């Protein structure tokens, strides 16, 4: 995917979110660190362009909720969670770059639910590469990318990587 394809996918997802939730009422967007946060910001901007409403947004770091803490030598950096609104009764769209095993999303669900009881949690991803290990699916998908397990999917975003692209290597 190149810059144009990413932008089109996000614009479409923004419309789908509005359609499914019938507008922006009680809607909030939460990005999963690191690249999900930038995608969430872009979705908030896209929704604002369509509806003229800036929906509340937050960011979530799932490091402390991982199911592999202490199993590898690497201890991932903790980057902090910011949910500057009460999640109770909101419809929350979780945003991540790549959906793979589903373990990140499982951790994010636990993290989010520690903040309260949302009315609903939905999932938006830029890329779904398959190989799920948990019963999790996305509500909004930018692109389905069939991959082999030994391939790597790299999502690069201009905010962090200077370029917008999705590549398989």
């Amino acid at each position, binding site marked *: 995917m190149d810059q144009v394809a990413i932008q089109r996918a996000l614009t479409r997802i923004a419309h789908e979110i509005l359609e499914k939730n019938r507008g922006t009422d009680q809607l909030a967007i939460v990005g999963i660190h690191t690249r999900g946060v930038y995608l969430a910001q872009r979705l908030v901007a896209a929704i604002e362009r369509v509806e003229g409403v800036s929906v509340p947004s937050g960011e979530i770091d799932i490091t402390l909720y991982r199911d592999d803490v202490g199993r590898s*030598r690497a201890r991932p950096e*903790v*980057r902090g969670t910011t949910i500057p609104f009460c999640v109770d009764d909101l419809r929350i769209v979780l945003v991540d770059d790549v959906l793979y095993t589903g373990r990140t999303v499982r951790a994010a669900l636990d993290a989010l639910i520690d903040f309260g009881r949302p009315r609903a949690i939905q999932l938006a991803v830029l890329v779904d590469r398959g190989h799920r290990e948990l019963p999790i699916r996305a509500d909004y998908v930018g692109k389905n990318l069939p991959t082999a397990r030994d391939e790597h999917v790299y999502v690069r975003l201009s905010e962090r990587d200077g370029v917008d692209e999705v590549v398989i290597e």
Partner: protein
Amino acid sequence: MFHRRHFLGIEGLTKDELLFLLSTAESFREISEREVKKVPTLRGKTIINLFYEPSTRTRTSFEIAAKRLSADAINITAAASSVAKGETLLDTARNLVAMRPAALVVRHPCSGAPHLLARLVDCPVINAGDGMHEHPTQALLDMMTIRAYKGEIAGLTVAIVGDLLHSRVARSNVLALTTLGAQVRLVGPPTLLPPEFRLWGVEVCTDLRRGLAGVDVVMALRLQRERQARNFLPSIEEYARHFCITPDALAAAKDDVLIMHPGPMNRGVEIDSQVADGPYSVILEQVTNGVAVRMALLYLLATQEREATEEQAEVGLHAPRRHAGALA
């Protein structure tokens, strides 16, 4: 990044390690603001707090930090343990480690006690204050508090005032502040100013008003009466007359000066109540940040895979090594 097995002191830490620890700690602060103040990270792990000296703040702070990470925290105080029956520190520690804690938090009146345990037992050790040597988690929480108000530590002038001779807090803070690029000024009576501090490139001042002139931060130290500070002073009253931080003495400091104290305070001795409870005081903020600092350290140290270091394998004193898989 921070890849050490133990956290024994500020001495020897690089600037990058300190900055990493501080930014990690800052990420943990939010958890204590939540309604449900708990994350599942250290579920199924045990943290032992082994305290050979009285402590309210530090022990409670470590206990709360462990519990907010879902670890089980066990507190052992020397007076109520087999220490009273004459068991040595090393034997006590080895027995505790045989029960497989994920980390051992140690406070001891002897300088170097946590370092000894780190070498001889197979468990990450955190120094919660050793004798007159270091109190490194206090220095981290102090740095975190300063950063929250001043942004950067580099370029600030910080006065540390009081009983510098006996203070492990001062030692750790001097090391942290100088590593991070602050200018440090030590202020106190000559009998309580250890001469070796001059080797660390700090200013030394024996007059309170001159010492506070133009400073961004004032750290008051507790006059340690239990460490016979009185032998170094004509009287507590005379000390207070010259070195108690009063609103009047503070007039020389910068307008937005921060007032810090590691606690417990001797009100009217090293710090005047008007200052301790005044608008510039961040003393309770320090306590709040202490929990975040200790959560960060427990996260970094207690999630390590169990793996004996080569040194311990050579010494042959460690408990039998478990498979990493046994943790699964």
